[in-house]
């Protein structure tokens, strides 16, 4: 248990503000691009 907490603490110390900002920006761009793009791959149609 102690080791797990230590590992989480180590991981969070490596995650700085810049990483979070990048993850959020990529997520926002992915949502934007999926929202405004309209390629047709027939994905939602039953076969």
């Amino acid at each position, binding site marked *: 248990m102690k080791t797990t907490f230590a590992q989480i603490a180590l991981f969070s110390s490596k995650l700085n503000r810049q990483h979070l900002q990048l993850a959020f920006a990529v997520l926002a761009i992915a949502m*934007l691009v999926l929202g405004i793009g*309209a*390629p047709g791959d027939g994905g939602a149609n039953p076969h």
Partner: protein
Amino acid sequence: MILLTAIAGGLVAGLLWARWQKRSYQAPDLRSTWLVLVGFVPQLLIAYLPATHHLLPNWLAAVSLSASLVLFLAFVWINRRLPGMPVLMTGLLLNLIVMAANGGWMPISPEVASRVLGEDVRNVVALGGRFGQKDILLPLQEMHLEFLSDRFLLPAWSPYQVAFSAGDILIAAGAFWLLAKPTANSNQTNAE
């Protein structure tokens, strides 16, 4: 899928470029991202979640899709000074225009849709019916602005088939550019 590939490619190119330049990679400084979060909700319900795909009547789904595109347009306009955004905005406008001209859906012809499916699409979807996430199956003679519709296909040898529009190409190019060459907003740059 092709759009997400452009994002992944842009991110990898940007990271490699930053490494080459011996600088840290800087994420694009996006403003008003809440517009994207709000605009994506109807898209998620109407286009991407199979459980809710056919929940709304078609007319309401089409109106909601158009409304979300307007929100996305506002977001892109606010961030228009970022690299790639003008290209992305042009793609958005092309898709918005052709969708508005065809009842709020992206038109696709039975011929192109059949190439995507690998079988006659009319066995699966009736003319005028929804195809995929945001497309509507329309014969060429009933289609408005056909040149902006989902009319392009990947090469026949590709195992994954998808139809895409001129707007989609510009959106993919803009997203790639945005992530491959991110810089701070001009105001922030001036302030530094």
